[in-house]
């Protein structure tokens, strides 16, 4: 280890806000949501100024919110530090997805690492449970109300060059209502506005051509902490690495679970896109399978690169 690297690591370790992260050589951005939304905005589909031309699947991805995580029973839960977190919220409508995006470009190809502390819940209620399911004091039926969330990107190395989306989805319940609790990756490209105008059919899943175009991440079974009722939240560490030189995923770590993603295929567009030179977007989404709002919260996030 060089003297510079030792000093850099010591400075990160001595900073209470950064020491829970493991950044690569250069911190590209550190977003503490006590400071605001930091450039995470709602994704909307392409249009020519006429909102009627926005495709349905990308017409209603919901504005991100700054939340203090308040619940009806205890009031404010708060974030890991400070008060506020970034919140993504679906509508209470089956198959609705909320997606936030942060748009960057990149200086050099190489490894990019996204880290965050996140938590998730479905919406609580006051009074008897709406579907009258039994509650044994530990296993709460509300866990079945949370669908999935996803972390991913949108990368293009040159105008009309190689473009792809990586997407890693934690499937709590699948679209058939089964509690599966595992990580999956997508196996087809995301249908773009250009593709739909060219005649591709409208899709039911934003990420893929067909909702079944997902495969299990090898050794991707993981039980996240679901602290019994929908008003108790626990924060999880997530670290996701992708490589813009190789055009692929590298690895995903969530708490103590490390998943090697280097061998999973990344679907690439067979055609090019104008204007997307060195595009590097970061994407987060949450997706409900029931008529219940689903929420994804980020306390903060840090993106670092190896250049």
């Amino acid at each position, binding site marked *: 280890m060089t003297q510079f690297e030792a000093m850099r690591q010591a400075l990160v370790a001595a900073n209470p806000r950064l020491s829970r992260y493991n950044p690569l050589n250069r911190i590209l951005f550190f977003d503490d949501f006590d400071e605001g*939304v930091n450039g995470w905005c709602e994704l909307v589909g392409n249009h020519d100024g006429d*909102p*009627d031309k926005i495709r349905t699947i990308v017409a209603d991805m919901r*504005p991100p*919110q*700054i939340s203090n995580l*308040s619940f009806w029973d205890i009031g404010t839960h708060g974030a890991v530090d400070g008060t*506020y977190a970034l919140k993504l919220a679906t509508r209470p409508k089956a198959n609705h997805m909320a997606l936030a995006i942060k748009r960057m470009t990149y200086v050099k190809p190489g490894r990019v690492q996204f880290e965050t502390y996140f938590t998730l819940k479905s919406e609580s209620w006051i009074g008897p449970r709406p579907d009258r399911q039994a509650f044994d004091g530990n296993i709460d039926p509300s866990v079945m109300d949370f669908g999935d969330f996803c972390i991913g990107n949108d990368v293009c190395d040159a105008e009309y060059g190689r473009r792809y989306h990586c997407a890693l989805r934690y499937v709590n319940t699948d679209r058939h209502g089964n509690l599966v609790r595992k990580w999956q990756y997508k196996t087809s490209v995301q249908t773009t506005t250009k593709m739909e105008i060219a005649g591709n059919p409208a899709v039911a899943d934003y990420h893929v051509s067909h909702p079944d175009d997902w495969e299990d991440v090898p050794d991707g079974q993981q039980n996240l902490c679901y602290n019994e009722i929908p008003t108790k939240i626990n924060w999880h560490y997530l670290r996701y690495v992708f490589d813009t030189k190789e055009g692929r995923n590298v690895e995903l770590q969530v708490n103590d679970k490390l998943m090697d993603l280097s061998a999973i295929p990344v679907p690439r567009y067979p055609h090019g896109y104008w204007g997307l030179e060195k595009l590097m977007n970061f994407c987060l989404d949450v997706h409900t399978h029931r008529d219940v709002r689903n929420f994804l919260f980020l306390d903060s996030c840090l993106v670092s690169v190896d250049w």
Partner: protein
Amino acid sequence: MLRRSFTAVPERNVAIADGFVTEPYETAWADEARWFVHVLEAPAGARIAFSAETSPEGLTWCAHEAAPVSLSGAGLATMPLRDIGPWQRLRFTVEGAASVRAIVYLTLKG
């Protein structure tokens, strides 16, 4: 340091009929709030009114003290909020038409 500000679009190009309410939006961090309603399309004779509602937890709602605002046909109307509370939404009444199409903005500063 400049203050934080944010414009949320809780509803975009949606059909708003009588009784429509917007999705809940969290505003605990904000000191100032102002709604804008941009009616894009409205049949002749349509009259739209909206009133603010607030909530402690995003589940149960009551009227905010702000006075309701109304407009006839397409156009832009605004409503400032004072003492805004932690969650916001708008409730609409529509008369003279089945529905209108509108974009709803919530602008925040704090």
